[in-house]
């Protein structure tokens, strides 16, 4: 046993608690120690601090066992110090907590006790790391602890604290605490004696959360201070979390604001709890919805601010309700109220999402009106378009024309090359147009070129195109020819007979190879074009004469369509005349019509200019007529039947003599037959024999039959 402890060791004086009162008195009167021990059933079980006992009871007072029971302290609380055993920190606390420490010998027997102060002196005297009590205590705490004395200087601290303030013991010890921590907070805690909690202290070097806890002495005066420091990262984390929630709130508000003009949260009574930042102006009659928080929104309906209250409806119906609310100022707001139920199935909250639809409503009605108008315009356009169609329509009732049209319709399903034959003015282009419109290329271009109307050199570049710099005066960028432009579509070559022989070769190549070579280029470009050619000349004859290439003729004469001249189908004349007159009537808002006699007269006319002539004549009649009814006499004046006999026939273009002769003869015979009905009378008018008229007329009819 340690020498010093032995010096301080006091013997254990004890008696049984079961002693009589007299015995107890005797025991106590003999004890000169401050502590007396009690046994029960021969076991040491408690001690009494006699100073305490005598202080409250008075020395010499009569003490019984039951009184003593109130002052006994069980020895189970008392630290037992056994020589040779290592001392732990909790043991030191045990020593601190009791008046005495029991000492045991190596045989585990109580040999006495020492008082607390003696035990502590002994413990601190021992050179033991563990015994650096305060240090161990302070370093065991995961927070920074700084001990400040009454001069507000730092007198002690722990490692955690030094880490947090990023300093060393030597640097801060004995320094005024105000240099490290907040002077104002320290002063405040010193002056008031109250603890200051959670003070955020941020400098360039550190960020900490500080508690200032004053140490009070017995007189309740501030004697010093404990400063508890917590690292801010933890606090930062919390702060960041709060920031995140705030952000989330902002985002949510922004999202809600884009979806709705206003969102309100009310409780089951209709009192406003929350609202979106955005709100519908001029609806509630307030400048800020914040003014309405806590107010019952249903009352606004009663006040007549708007109607109806969607919150009331949702509450009553216990389901989602959508309503168009109207304000006296004419505002329309679509409000959707969604009740939220608690676990008991009762309404907990009602969410009201509103949208100002005043503008939308206005725009919708405007849109509807615009739609109605555009529908009308569309109908008008359709009417006009169909009128146009009417103008382009092929009008006929003759079986000859019907055959032609049937053939046209049949072949429009194919891409075959078509040759339209017929006199000038019979409507060859119209037929070509019909083939295009009825066929599968109707969505693609339809281009027309009159081969007889363009000079040879120009025609070549027009048809096939040219590359840049092909010739002087050409477009610098080059040009896509008609074939190129009509790719996928239809190219109508009118007056194909007028195509110069050099170009006939080039056209033949296009038809055979399905590719064009622009002027000035050596490269061929593939093209997909349906060719429709037309002529009023006898191509077969031209081939015979060597003016039209035979190979080209056969190449274009794949599907020939012979359009009969008007004189061969007089039954179409009244229909066409009626149609033309109607077109003019509509155009000029007139009401002209032909007398039946006038129509008869038109029917017997020869119409060398065919439909074009008829159309022009009708226009002339309408323009010059004085009366709405156009009489036969008036028509006769324009046609000049009588004079026609005397006037010598006029040919305006050069054509082979034989062809002209045949043509003239044919016309004369037909005209005579139409007018006089019999061959005899016709023969007389023509001044040839009846048999000649009969023969020639039969021949003409046979030709027409073909």
């Amino acid at each position: 046993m340690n020498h010093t402890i032995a010096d301080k060791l006091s013997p254990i004086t004890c008696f049984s608690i079961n002693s009589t009162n007299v015995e107890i008195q005797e025991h106590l009167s003999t004890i000169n120690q401050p502590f007396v021990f009690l046994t029960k059933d021969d076991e040491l079980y408690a001690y009494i601090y006699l100073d305490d006992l005598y202080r409250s009871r008075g020395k010499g007072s009569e003490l019984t066992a039951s009184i003593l029971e109130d002052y006994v302290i069980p020895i189970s609380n008392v630290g037992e110090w056994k020589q040779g055993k290592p001392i732990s920190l909790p043991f030191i606390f045990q020593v601190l907590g009791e008046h005495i420490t029991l000492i045991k010998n190596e045989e585990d027997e109580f040999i006495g006790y020492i008082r607390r102060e003696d035990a502590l002196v002994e413990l601190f005297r021992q050179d033991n790391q563990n015994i650096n009590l305060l240090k161990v205590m302070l370093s065991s705490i995961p927070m920074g602890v700084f001990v400040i004395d009454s001069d507000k200087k730092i007198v002690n601290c722990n490692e955690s604290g030094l880490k947090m303030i990023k300093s060393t013991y030597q640097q801060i010890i004995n320094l005024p605490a105000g240099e490290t921590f907040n002077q104002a907070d320290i002063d405040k805690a010193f002056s008031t004696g109250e603890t200051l909690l959670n003070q955020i202290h941020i400098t360039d070097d550190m960020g900490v959360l500080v508690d200032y806890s004053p140490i009070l002495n017995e007189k309740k005066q501030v004697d010093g201070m404990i400063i508890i420091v917590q690292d801010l990262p933890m606090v930062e984390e919390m702060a960041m979390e709060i920031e995140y929630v705030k952000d989330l709130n902002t985002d949510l508000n922004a999202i809600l604001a884009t979806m709705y003009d206003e969102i309100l949260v009310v409780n089951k009574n209709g009192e406003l709890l929350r609202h979106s930042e955005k709100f519908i102006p001029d609806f509630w009659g307030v400048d800020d919805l914040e003014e309405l928080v806590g107010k019952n929104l249903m009352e606004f309906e009663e006040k007549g601010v708007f109607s109806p209250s969607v919150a009331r409806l949702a509450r009553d119906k216990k389901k989602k309700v959508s309503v168009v609310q109207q304000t006296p100022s004419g505002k329309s707001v679509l409000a959707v109220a969604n009740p939220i139920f608690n676990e008991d199935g009762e309404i907990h909250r009602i969410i009201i999402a509103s949208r100002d639809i005043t503008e939308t409503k206005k725009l919708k009605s405007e849109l509807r009106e615009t739609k109605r108008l555009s529908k009308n315009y569309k109908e008008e356009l359709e009417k006009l378009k169909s009128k146009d169609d009417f103008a382009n329509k092929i009008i006929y009732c003759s079986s000859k024309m019907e055959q032609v049209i049937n053939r046209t319709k049949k072949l429009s399903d194919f891409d075959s090359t078509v040759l339209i034959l017929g006199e000038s003015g019979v409507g060859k282009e119209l037929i070509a147009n019909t083939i295009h419109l009825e066929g599968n290329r109707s969505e693609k271009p339809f281009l027309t070129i009159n081969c007889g109307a363009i000079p040879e050199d120009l025609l070549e570049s027009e048809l096939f195109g040219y590359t840049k710099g092909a010739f002087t005066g050409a477009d610098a960028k080059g040009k896509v020819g008609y074939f190129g432009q009509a790719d996928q579509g239809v190219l109508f070559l009118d007056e194909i007979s007028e195509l110069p022989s050099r170009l006939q070769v080039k056209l033949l190549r296009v038809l055979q190879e399905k590719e064009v070579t622009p002027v000035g280029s050596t490269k061929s470009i593939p093209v997909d074009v349906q060719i429709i050619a037309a002529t009023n000349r006898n191509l077969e004859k031209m081939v015979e004469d060597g003016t039209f290439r035979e190979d080209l003729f056969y190449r274009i004469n794949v599907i020939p369509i012979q359009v009969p001249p008007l004189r061969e189908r007089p039954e179409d004349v009244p229909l066409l005349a009626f149609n033309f007159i109607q077109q003019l009537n509509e155009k000029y808002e007139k009401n002209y019509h032909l007398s039946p006699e006038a129509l008869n007269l038109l029917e017997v006319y020869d119409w060398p200019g065919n439909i074009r002539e008829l159309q022009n004549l009708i226009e002339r009649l309408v323009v010059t007529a004085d009366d709405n009814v156009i009489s036969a006499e008036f028509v006769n004046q324009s046609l000049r039947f009588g004079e026609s006999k005397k006037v010598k026939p006029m040919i305006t273009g050069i054509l082979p003599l034989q062809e002209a002769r045949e043509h003239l003869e044919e016309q004369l015979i037909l005209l005579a037959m139409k007018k006089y009905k019999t061959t005899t009378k016709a023969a007389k008018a023509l001044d040839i024999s009846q048999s000649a008229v009969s023969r020639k007329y039969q021949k003409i009819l046979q030709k027409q039959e073909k």
Partner: protein
Amino acid sequence: MGYDEMITSPCDGVIEQICVQENCRIYEWDSLFKIRTSDGDLETVSLGLSGLLRSLEVYVGEEVISGMVLAYIAEDLVVSGSD
């Protein structure tokens, strides 16, 4: 809630019949709802437009008031019907 067209009740009353279903097409001439008004009259609700009925907001027997949304319709952009 998009920019759909909505059908609102023209009167106060009780929904007596719903002639359409959700996600079905409606046309300009369709009768959509029949509402028994508080006066006892039967009011037929129809809308001069065609489209897809996106959602029904009421049920048969439900009390409605003027302005209450009965259904939302995604309106056709082109006129489907003819006069």
